[in-house]
């Protein structure tokens, strides 16, 4: 499976004209063509595509992701130390943690808010509460993120100086205590996480709402109510547990999304994450980096599918017992 994915990705990548030597600087009258040709030979870019693929596979099976083609020559995945003890950090090593952090925070927020809103919608079906929640999540889904981002940056950062506008830390960062640095980072993440979560709310909350509606109309709920159980216990313990089951599959399937960042959000908020890394590498035709990210992404997709299946089986006893597929 991984070989298929990597082969297709490699070939598609090479379909685009140009390579790492065709940057904006390549149109500088002071830059010579021979140097570009030399660089192409050094990186094997003049060899047939299938041979380039073979060379790449030979390295990747030894878990050697190689170095970037860019002039900084940084390793694609993990840091390397040279003979004098200087450490050059890897590209993915630097970008992945921040993307993971934003995405994990985003997922926690999306799921907690969506479950609350979805349940509320279902319990108060067709009242003004239900309608306004649906309206709210659809607005959140439809609104262009970059536009809202700029508006919020202006309102919270320029007109009222509550939050920082962009970046990941303030200027006097080093002088803050450990706790102060943590709070500073959280302040910088409020806007990016909110903007990227906003569009995810619609899907999940409506999913939960529909799941809850199905369940609330079933017989066992009527039984529970007639037993005299408190309404909150009926809703939150008996009904919700069943409605959440499909969400486990969704969580599993969103694992590969954890390493992808939105390049638009990252550009606007000046966050050096995986989205910007991938986008810049594509524009620069930086093949080792592109293939590195695609390989990790496909690996995580496969793992995510597996976890989703396992998770569903664990959560739903009926699946385990073979009663429901």
């Amino acid at each position, binding site marked *: 499976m991984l070989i298929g994915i990597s082969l297709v990705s490699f070939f598609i990548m090479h379909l685009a*004209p*140009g*390579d790492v030597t*065709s*940057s*904006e*600087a*390549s*149109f*500088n*009258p*002071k*830059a*010579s*063509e021979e*140097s*570009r*040709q*030399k660089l192409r030979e*050094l990186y094997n870019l003049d060899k047939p595509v299938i041979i380039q693929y073979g060379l790449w596979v030979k390295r990747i099976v030894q878990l050697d992701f190689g170095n970037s083609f*860019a*002039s*900084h*020559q940084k390793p694609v995945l993990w840091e390397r130390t*040279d003979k*004098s003890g*200087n450490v*050059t*950090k890897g590209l993915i090593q*630097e970008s992945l943690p921040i993307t993971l952090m934003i995405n994990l925070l985003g997922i926690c927020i999306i799921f907690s808010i969506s479950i609350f809103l979805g349940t*509320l919608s279902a*319990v*108060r079906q067709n009242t003004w*509460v239900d309608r306004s929640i649906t309206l709210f999540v659809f607005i959140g889904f439809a609104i262009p993120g970059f536009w809202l981002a*700029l508006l919020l*940056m*202006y309102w919270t*950062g*320029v007109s*009222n*100086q509550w*939050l*920082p*506008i*962009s*970046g*990941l*830390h*303030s*200027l*006097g960062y080093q*002088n*803050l205590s450990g706790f102060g640095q943590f709070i500073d980072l959280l302040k910088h993440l409020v806007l990016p996480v909110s903007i990227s979560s906003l569009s995810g709310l619609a899907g999940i909350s409506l999913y939960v709402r529909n799941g809850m509606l199905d369940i609330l109309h079933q017989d066992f709920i009527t039984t529970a109510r007639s037993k005299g159980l408190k309404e909150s216990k009926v809703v939150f313990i008996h009904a919700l547990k069943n409605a959440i089951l499909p969400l486990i599959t969704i969580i599993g399937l969103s694992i590969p999304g954890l390493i992808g960042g939105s390049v638009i959000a990252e*550009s*606007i908020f*000046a966050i*050096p994450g995986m989205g910007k890394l991938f986008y810049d590498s594509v*524009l*620069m*035709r930086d093949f080792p980096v592109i293939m590195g990210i695609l390989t990790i992404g496909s690996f995580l997709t496969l793992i995510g599918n597996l976890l989703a299946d396992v998770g569903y089986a664990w959560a739903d006893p009926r699946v385990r017992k073979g009663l429901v597929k």
Partner: protein
Amino acid sequence: MKKNCLFSNFIAIFISSIFIISCSKDTTEVIDYNGKFKHISGGNLINAMAGEPSNLIAMIAGDSASSAIAGNIFNSLLKYDENLNYAPDLAESWQISNDQKTISFKLKKGLQWADGKPLTSADVLFTWKLITNPNTRTPYASDYQLVKKASTPDSLTFKVTYESSYAPALDTWTSLHILPKHILKDEDINNTFFSRNPTGSSFYKLDEWISGQQVTLKANDKSVLGVPLINKLISRIIPDTSSQFLELTADNLDVMNINPIQYQRVFPARKDLRQKIALYKELGNGYTYLGFNLKKTPFNDIRVRQALNYAIDKDEVIKGVLLGLGEPISSPYKPGTRWNNPNLSPYPYKPSKALVLLQEAGFKKNDDGILMKNGKPLKFEIITNQNKQREMTAVVIQKRLQEIGVEVSIRVIEWASFVNRFIKTGDFDVVVLGWSLSLDPDQYNIWHSSQQGPGQFNFLGYSNKNVDKLLELGRKELNVSKREKIYHEFSKYLLEDSPIIYLYAGYGLSAVHKRVKGIKNPAPPAGIYHNNYDWFVPKSLRRSEISAR
């Protein structure tokens, strides 16, 4: 029932708090930025970059962010002063031999690297050997390979001998950053950690580089040209220009490049911004043009090219695309410099003359008003890269050409594909592009008929024997007034042949916070940044350590 009450209460409190917060009074103190301030050292200057530098060794890095930062860390032998004349940098004087093939540079005494070790001619020789070494991955070696022999007669003298006299030589020595031999002699220059932690000799040295976020430089107390007044230069990496603008207005940035809309529309409408931020404009050393593929019909016919030149209103382009912040040009040189021929003027907007020329070339208007020749309409495609100004320029041109009966379509292509799929292969009709040029007038690489190979810069296919001769002569002539005549004549041929239509030379626009003093306004020929080591921030106007977010 209970839940309903709780929820409505929550909504009510939420909405009312929004109102209360947004209605709070605005308390801003008025600071007086005008007045006399003492030159004093200290403070910091925060600017923004759209891209991150990749490698601080300028000969290896290809991107502008890297050379911008490296330019603050390293010196060359010469530099340009504010009037774009050669001035001493590491070399205090230089002499050209009588046969014009040898240049002798005399270094200043007592030069030091930032780590205290002495800077001598050995470092200069080392740097020259490095850039001409075939194993060094640099695109800029060709100028330095023309040096037949380089030597260091003593520790303060560096001598180079060229095969034949090479007029652009001095300009090439203004852009070679001299590197320390004692640090790099055993390093692999293509893979050394020095690129991320350099030691230079100029005004600043690297303080901190937080990958992807910011690069901080601090004043080098051993700087060969003296210690700068501003203590720290902080470059924040902010890819989006709207975010940069928001940071500027929130006082988190001091300097920013702005676009014509911000200069002409946003700032004039915002009194609060004009109170604390000053605007500057300067002419850069580049121009935007419409280039014809001279190997394709009908562009091989000079009457067609000249006709299209008359049919485009360049003033309209400058007004519409640049909001008036640019100048029309008639030669490939910066207006105001000696290389610009003052007797040439741009083709005026005369659509009637355009039609006359096209008729001579055999085009006649059909019933729909489209120009036809041999049954084929005059129709072509303009391609350009993803640059908003070039796209808008193409649209303005399309409209004007449509008025005289020429059908034009526009295509915008991402850069790498643009160069490889269309430019290199010669598979294009017309391009809208720009050149950003060095200060030496030599344009051999762009206009000489021998430079038409794949990957070379005469991609339009221009060939004119007179121009070839002039370009060859210009490269050899070291006498400035003779050289001036050569390039004036060259510009005349270029204007007549019209292989390109000069569209405009746009201004570089900057917004700088008024706390930064020492900026020369109006900008001298070298631009406002040439003396950034002389800028200072008065003590009373500095921001406190943590207030910038």
